[in-house]
């Protein structure tokens, strides 16, 4: 796929532009690259129904193309939104953008893979730049700690994943997802190797999306990384990870569901509750969002438990809702103050700045699943698909969202506090991102219905 090449080459060019120490130039080159990639993908989405490249290891049909569009768009918005803060470091700005480009390449590979080779390569291209991005604020102790932690745990997860892939290869004799899926369906595999391999792969993937019991890195890594990088991690990386887990677990190993069903049952319920319960008393916004991310991961994982074929669409709507809300929260808090991420810094902001207040209100209500925002439609579709097969899971999802609503409501109350000494905040380019995301949250759900 040519868009992949365009993005990759943009990343390379951006590295060389770094020599000139001109952040504005780096940003514009990256944006040009991203928009040409966007146009290329858009053309494919309109004129080519299915796109195979690299000897069939990457296959893009309808939903995959739209997901790639979404990933490119989100990356562009994150670049625009983070520019004001990140460009203060003139020496390294271009490095950061190029790392994001490389990571985006990996994300698009993960969206389109049809082969365990490409899957593994994509996952590594996605992860390694993110390890570096997390540690990009070199003066911060927390950032170095986070990068090291993320790198070590991440490499263990990769090792486990490789072991799992090897076992699955041993059981079926193939790397191709279609062939493996066929072997699983017709029972042509070695059971012991297969089951061990599947469980190892699932564990590694759950680590990537941050589900309980593989969630411990989440809060620390988010706290250490800058807000733009965190925005990247909670949108693009999360979308890619979820699509990968959906394709592998649901589509390929779907017939083996007896083996992994109960494991996933425990994982989902634990994620939903442990995330929100740990978030109850947090005072740091980043940690709070990390824990709410864990819970949302649990809800998103419902997509692989359902018996219908619509899971991917529901998952995508849910991820759009979650990603857009995270972007709004992160960028608004970056507008207020980059360094301080204590929740009390949001106190009274909404009352003095109605625009920011309404955006935050939309984001938080969407996260708590209140209609008519996109977050509601995501949860609604996910729960609708599983209510017949797993009523227990749907009740658990609803109970956990009540706990979540408590957390978000407390935030809303403090944001709209009348009696505080909040100041009027000067807006910059970030507000474009905030407006885009708020519109997305308002409209995406309805666009899907009508």
């Amino acid at each position, binding site marked *: 796929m040519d868009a992949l090449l365009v993005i990759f080459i943009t990343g390379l060019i951006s590295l060389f532009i770094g020599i000139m120490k001109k952040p504005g130039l780096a940003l514009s080159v990256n944006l040009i690259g991203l928009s040409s990639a966007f146009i290329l993908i858009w053309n494919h989405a309109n004129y080519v129904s299915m796109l195979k490249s690299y000897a069939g290891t990457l296959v893009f049909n309808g939903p995959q193309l739209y997901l790639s569009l979404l990933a490119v768009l989100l990356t562009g918005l994150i670049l625009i939104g983070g520019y004001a803060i990140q460009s203060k470091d003139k020496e390294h700005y271009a490095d950061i953008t190029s790392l994001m480009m490389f990571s985006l390449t990996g994300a698009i590979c993960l969206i389109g893979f049809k082969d365990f080779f490409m899957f593994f390569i994509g996952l590594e291209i996605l992860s390694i730049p993110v390890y570096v991005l997390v540690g990009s604020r070199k003066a911060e102790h927390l950032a170095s700690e986070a990068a090291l932690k993320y790198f070590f745990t991440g490499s263990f997860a990769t090792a486990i994943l490789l072991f799992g892939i090897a076992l699955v290869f041993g059981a079926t004799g193939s790397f191709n997802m279609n062939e493996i899926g066929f072997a699983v369906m017709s029972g042509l595999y070695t059971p012991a190797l297969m089951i061990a391999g599947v469980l190892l792969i699932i564990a590694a993937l759950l680590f990537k999306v941050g589900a309980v019991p593989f969630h411990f890195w989440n809060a620390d890594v988010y706290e250490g990384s800058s807000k733009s990088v965190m925005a990247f991690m909670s949108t693009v990386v999360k979308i890619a990870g979820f699509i990968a887990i959906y394709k592998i677990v649901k589509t390929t190993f779907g017939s083996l569901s007896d083996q992994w069903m109960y494991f996933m049952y425990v994982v989902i319920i634990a994620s939903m509750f442990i995330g929100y319960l740990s978030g109850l008393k947090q005072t740091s916004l980043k940690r709070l969002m990390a824990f709410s991310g864990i819970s949302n991961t649990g809800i998103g994982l419902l997509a692989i438990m359902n018996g219908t074929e619509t899971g991917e669409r529901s998952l995508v709507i849910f991820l759009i809702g979650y990603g857009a809300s995270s972007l709004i929260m992160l960028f608004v808090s970056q507008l207020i103050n980059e360094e301080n991420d204590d929740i009390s810094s949001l106190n009274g902001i909404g009352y003095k700045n109605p625009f920011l207040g309404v955006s935050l209100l939309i984001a938080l209500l969407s996260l708590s699943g209140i*209609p008519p925002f996109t977050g509601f439609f995501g949860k609604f579709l996910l729960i609708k698909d599983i209510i017949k097969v797993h009523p227990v899971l749907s009740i658990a999802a609803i109970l956990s969202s009540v706990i979540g609503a408590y957390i978000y409501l407390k935030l809303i109350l403090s944001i709209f506090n009348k009696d505080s000494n909040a100041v009027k905040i000067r807006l910059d380019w970030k507000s474009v991102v905030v407006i885009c995301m708020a519109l997305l949250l308002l409209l995406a759900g309805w666009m*899907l*219905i*009508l």
Partner: protein
Amino acid sequence: MTRLLLFDPKYMEYLFHSGKVYKLGLTFEMGYDGIGIVMLALSNLVIFLVALANFNKEEANAPRFAGLIFLMQFGLNGLFAAQDAVMFYIFWEFTLIPVFLMLYWFGAKENNRTLLKFFLYTLFGSLFMLLSILAIGVYSNSYAYETIQYTAIPAKYACWIFSGFLIAFAVKVPLFPFHTWQPNTYSTAPMAGTMLLSAIMLKMALFGMIKWMIPLSFSALPTWQWPVIILSVIGILYGAFIAMREYNIRKVFAFASISHLGLIVAGIMVFTVDSLQGSIIQMVNHSLIAIGLFFAAGIIEQRLGTSNLNEMGGIAKIAPRFGFWFGVIMFVSLSVPMTAGFIGEFLLIKSVFEFNSWMGILSALTLVIGAVYMIRAYQMSSMGAPKITAFKDLMWNEISVFAIIAILALSLGLYPDFIFSIVKPSIKHMLEAVADTQLIIK
């Protein structure tokens, strides 16, 4: 206008009727039948009265306040006109947002705990309603009212669906064990918020019971009828007894409202033509008196700076116009003959009595005890030797609110057929549809 003149309450009149099923099985249809148009008219009247009542308060100048009231009106109109279960749910949750913000911005200071309790309690309830709606969708592959109305759901599943709806509506009404959010919320909310909550948001739940909960899961009604009626009779007595001993004037009216609404819920659960007619006219009547009573309480609080009954007395002597109109509203809420309340309570008690005589006798006690707490509240605040020195008498807009309420209550009491003639055909139609569906199950 011609639509209104040609309106035949037996059938559904569609405002939008695309007849198209969108992706995800959702439809976008809005319309009203006889019950719907009564509720639509009521909600718009309530919004008008609330706006009029707040006309000379400082809140009325805040753009936020007007915005929230209109958002509320949007949500209410959508809710009463929704002909699709998911749309009903969306508007149901949507109405929570403006009320929540109104309570937060214009209510008493330091009410965060109360607000969180109110919001989470109602959200908790309505999420179970969402589960029920989803379950209905799974059974009938559609969310459109005209389809799911005729879907036969087996009794075992209908019980679960019914209970999901019931949790949501019982929290909102509130029914006896779920009422703990109500008195505190009412007493800390701004006057407009209390009026909106009691006059129209509770009616959303009652309307939901009549239109959505019972017809859609009718085979569960025999199972749930007794428990709910017992709970509502407990609520009638409990609310009345607490109101007799309460000294905060707003809390007196809040508990009185629990007591009044218990009777309406019991009537709805009997589910006959008479009881439904009675409950609808009583819903209209309760909206009127709730506005009147909480308005009077709000005026007293605003001018005296206290809500404690012990510190009041003799208001009627200092402010005779207020004393007169407060007295009128009090008599309306006592449901003396020739007011709408009399017709409603008579029909309701009669149908509960026909259902079970003991329940009927117990619920008839509401008339007696109601007189006790209402007259007590009026006596302690307005009669006796004046304990207060100054009380500014009513303004024109306040008088007109009271007058509109009193005229409506009187005219409905003298000519209840105005509502019955609209409502009765659609109730009959609904009961026939339910009976048809039950035949399919058998």
